[in-house]
C-alpha cells in the first residue's frame, strides 16, 4: 500500500454533496475501508463517503462518473468475495446512514426500507407485526439489506423459503450517470418492462446503487422444531436427504457437518458430539405444531431407514438450541484452528453432495490442507472451509490450487462456483469456465449499458 494524496479537488466536491463531516480521506480511515470480510484482499480507496439520501448518492455518482473515478458501494462489508475491496482505488460509498425502515405493512405483506438497514432490524420490525422476512444469512446481525440484495444472499431457510431474490418486489436505484429509477413496487404481479429489480439482485454493486427496497413478507410460522441424526458416512446422510424430500416433507432446515467439522466443534465447544460419526444431519420444520411433529417424525424415520446410527428429536426449545449449537459452532470452531480461514460456497445439485464432499476431502489430502465442510444439505450449498497459517506461504498457494480444483469439479457436477457469496474480485477468473464466452460477452454488454464509463465496482462482475 503506497501513500498517495487525495486526487485534487475530489474531497471538496464530495463535501459539497454530503457535507464536511461525511467524507473521510485520512489515511487511517482509508485503511479501515480497504478491506471487507474476505481474507488477504485489500486496496486503498481515495475517499470514503457517507450519503444520507438518494439525491446525495446521485450527486456522488455524477462526480465519480464525470471524473472516471471507481465507485464501490458498501453496506457493512461482510461479503466474502472481496466485493467491496477498492483494488483500483476510488470512492467507497457507505450506505449505512440510510438506515430507516420506512414501512411494514401487515395488510399488504410488504416492507419498505433503505439499503443500510441491517437484516436483523428488518426481521425484528417484521416480527413485531407477526410477519417473517425469510432470508437469514449467517451474517444477518451485521449485514445490510442492500448488501443482501446486491449479493442475493441465501441462508439457512433457503430450501423452503427461497433466497433474497424471491422477496424483492421493488427497487429504487441510482444509475452510474446519476439518474434515479424504480423497478417494480408493491405489486405481486407486474410485467411492465424487463425485470430490472431481479437483474439488480446479485449485481454486486456493478450496475447501479440501490437506495430503497420494497420487500415481500410472509406470515410468521407459529412454531419450529428440530432434530439430529448421525451417519456412518456422508453418502448415507445424502440418501436420507433424498428420502426426506421424496416423503412429501419440505423442511425449513437440513444442515450437515462432515467429520472434520464434527471433530473441530467437539474439540472447541465440547457439547457431546459423536466424533466417530462420518456425518451429522440437523433437520427442522416450522409452521403448525401438529405438522412439525408429523414432519420431524417422518424425517427421523427417513434417517433411520438410510442407516443413521442414532436419531434424536429435540423435545424442548432448550434441546432444540443444543441441536442447532453444533451448526452454529462450525465456523467459530474451524476458525480457531489456524489464523487464516477461507470460507467457500461451491454448490452442487443435492444428489451430488456426497460425491462433492468426498472430492473435497481428497483434494485436501492431496494438497496437505485442513478443509472442513458444512452446509445446507437441502439445497446443495456447501461451505468447504480451509484453515491455514498464512506465515506458511506455500499453504496459501496450495489452498488456491485446491479451491480451483473444487470449483472445476462443482461445475462438472452441474453445480456453481458460488451459491450465495458472489463473484466479487476473487472468483471472476473462474466465472467464464462456468458461463462460457458468449454468456460473458452478454454480461459485459449489459454492464456497459448500465455503466458506460465502467465506474461501478470495476474489475469485478461484468468485467
Amino acid at each position, binding site marked *: *500500500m503506497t501513500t498517495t494524496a487525495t486526487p485534487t479537488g475530489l474531497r471538496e466536491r464530495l463535501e459539497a454533496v454530503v457535507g464536511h463531516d461525511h467524507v*473521510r480521506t*485520512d*489515511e*487511517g*480511515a482509508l*485503511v*479501515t*475501508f*480497504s*478491506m*471487507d*470480510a*474476505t*481474507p*488477504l*484482499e*485489500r*486496496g486503498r480507496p481515495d475517499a470514503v463517503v*457517507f450519503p444520507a439520501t438518494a439525491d446525495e448518492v446521485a450527486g456522488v455518482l455524477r462526480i465519480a462518473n464525470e471524473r472516471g473515478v471507481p465507485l464501490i458501494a458498501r453496506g*457493512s*462489508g*461482510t461479503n466474502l468475495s*472481496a466485493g467491496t*475491496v477498492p*483494488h483500483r482505488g476510488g470512492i467507497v460509498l*457507505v450506505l*449505512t*446512514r440510510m438506515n430507516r425502515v420506512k414501512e411494514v405493512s401487515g395488510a399488504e405483506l410488504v416492507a419498505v426500507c433503505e439499503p443500510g438497514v*441491517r437484516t436483523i432490524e428488518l426481521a425484528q420490525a417484521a416480527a413485531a407485526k407477526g410477519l417473517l422476512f425469510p432470508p437469514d444469512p449467517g*451474517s444477518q*446481525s*451485521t*449485514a445490510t439489506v442492500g448488501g443482501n440484495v446486491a449479493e442475493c444472499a441465501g441462508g439457512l431457510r433457503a430450501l423452503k423459503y427461497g433466497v433474497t431474490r424471491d422477496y424483492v418486489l421493488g427497487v429504487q436505484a441510482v444509475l452510474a450517470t446519476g439518474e434515479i429509477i424504480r423497478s417494480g413496487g408493491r405489486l405481486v404481479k407486474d410485467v411492465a418492462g424487463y425485470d430490472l429489480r431481479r437483474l439488480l439482485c446479485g449485481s454486486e454493486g456493478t450496475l447501479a446503487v440501490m437506495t430503497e427496497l420494497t420487500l415481500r413478507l410472509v406470515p410468521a410460522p407459529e412454531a419450529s422444531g428440530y432434530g439430529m441424526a448421525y451417519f456412518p458416512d456422508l453418502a448415507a446422510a445424502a440418501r436420507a436427504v433424498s428420502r426426506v424430500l421424496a416423503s412429501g416433507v419440505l423442511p425449513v432446515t437440513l444442515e450437515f457437518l462432515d467429520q472434520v467439522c464434527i471433530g473441530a466443534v467437539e474439540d472447541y465447544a465440547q457439547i457431546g458430539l459423536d466424533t466417530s460419526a462420518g456425518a451429522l444431519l440437523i433437520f427442522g420444520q416450522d409452521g403448525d405444531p401438529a405438522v412439525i411433529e408429523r414432519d420431524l417424525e417422518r424425517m427421523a424415520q427417513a434417517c433411520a431407514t438410510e442407516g443413521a446410527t442414532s436419531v434424536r428429536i429435540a423435545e424442548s426449545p432448550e434441546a432444540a438450541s443444543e441441536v442447532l449449537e453444533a451448526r452454529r459452532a462450525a*465456523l*467459530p470452531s474451524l*476458525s*480457531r484452528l489456524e*489464523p*487464516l*480461514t477461507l470460507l467457500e460456497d461451491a454448490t452442487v445439485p443435492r444428489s451430488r453432495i456426497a460425491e462433492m464432499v468426498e472430492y473435497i476431502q481428497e483434494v485436501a489430502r492431496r494438497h496437505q490442507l485442513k478443509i472442513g465442510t458444512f452446509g445446507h444439505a437441502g439445497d446443495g450449498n456447501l461451505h468447504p472451509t480451509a484453515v491455514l497459517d*498464512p*506465515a506458511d*506461504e506455500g499453504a*496459501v498457494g496450495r489452498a*488456491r490450487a485446491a479451491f480451483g480444483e473444487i470449483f472445476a469439479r462443482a461445475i462438472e457436477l452441474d453445480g456453481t462456483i458460488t451459491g450465495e457469496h458472489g463473484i466479487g*474480485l*476473487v472468483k*471472476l*477468473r473462474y466465472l467464464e469456465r462456468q458461463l462460457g464466452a458468449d454468456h460473458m460477452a452478454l454480461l459485459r454488454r449489459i454492464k456497459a449499458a448500465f455503466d458506460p464509463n465502467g465506474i461501478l465496482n470495476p*474489475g469485478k462482475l461484468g468485467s
Partner: protein
Amino acid sequence: MTTAAIAPDPVPERRGVFTAELLDRCISCGFCLPACPTYALTGVETSSPRGRINLMRALETGVLPDDDPTVQEESSFCLGCRACEPVCPAGVQYGELVEEWRDHLWNGRGRPWKVRPLLWAVDSPRRVRAMGIVRRHAGRGEAPGPVNLMLGCFERVLYPRVSRDARKLAGELAAPAAQGCCGALHAHNGELGRGRQLAQRLGEALPGTIVTTSGGCGAHLAGVLGGDRVKELSQWLHARDGAVVGNPTAARPRIGLQDSCHLRHGLGVWREPRELIARVGEYVELPSAAGCCGGAGSYAIVRPQDSARVLDRHLDEIAGADLDLVAVVNAGCYRQLQQGVKRRRLRTRVLHLAELLAGVK
C-alpha cells in the same frame, strides 16, 4: 486472487507491537460492529472493533506510523468496554489487544495528560491509603483472612459506604487497610507491565480469595491472578448463598441495573446481580443495561463529551422506565450514572449493589 495487482503482500514484517496470536485471531467478519458503542455514535467503521483491529494491523506492519492521527484518536476513543468480545465468533480477545495498543502508543509521551495524575495517585500503596484516610471505609489495620475484601482506590474516597456495606452482608470478609491498587487503571491506560505488577503485589498482600466490589478491578485481577482466587461481590455472594442475600421489603421498589462491562464481558457475570436485585425489589431490565455507560474507567475524565454521549441513551431509558433505583457494580459506573442522573434531575437514586442489599431492610 485474480491479478498481480491485488495479490496479497508478501508476508509482512511484524514490528512486535502486538502478540501475533491475538492479532491474527480476527477473521474480519464484522460481527462485532453492532455491539460497539463508539460505532453506534459515529456510524464509521474506523471507530469499530474491526476498524481498530485493522488500524492495529496497519501499525504492526508499518503501513501506518505510531503518530498517525487516526490511530492516536481511535486508541483513545475506544471505551475498552469489551462488548465486542462475546459476539465474536473467532474468540478475539480485544481487551488484551487494546491494552497492548495503548501500552505501545501511550507509554511515554503519548498518554492523555488527564490520566497522568490518576495513575500517579494510585501507583503507590501509601498514596492509595492516604487517599482514603479521612473517609470511613471498611478497611482497618487487620491481618488478611481466608477471604479478603479488596478496597477500590477511588471507591475508598468517593463511595466509602460500599465496602462497609459489603462487610455488613458478609462478616467473614477481612478488610486489611494495607493494600494498594489492583493496577487495572494502569493496564487500561498504556502501562501494561506496571498494571500486572500491581495486581501481583495485591495478590501477595491479600493471600487467599479476593472479593471485589468493582467489576473492572475484578476482571483485571482475575486476568493476572486467575479466576479461582478473584471473585466479584455478587458472584461470590450468589455462589455462597444463592439469591437470598438482603431482606425483601413490602415496598418492592423498581430497580434497574447497569452491568459493569468487564464484569459481564470479561468475567461472564451478569445473571448473579440481577437475581440478587430481584430479591429486594422489582427488577427492571433496561434495554441497554449490558452496554457501556461511558464511565469506562478514566474515559469519563479523558473524553467527557464522548462519555456523555454514550451515557445519554442509558439516561433516556432510566427516565422512561421511571425507576426508583438503579444499581451499579463498579465505582466508575457509580460516578458516571450519579452525575448523569443529577444533571438530568431524575428522581432515580443510584446505589452500589452492596448498599442496595445491605440497606433495603
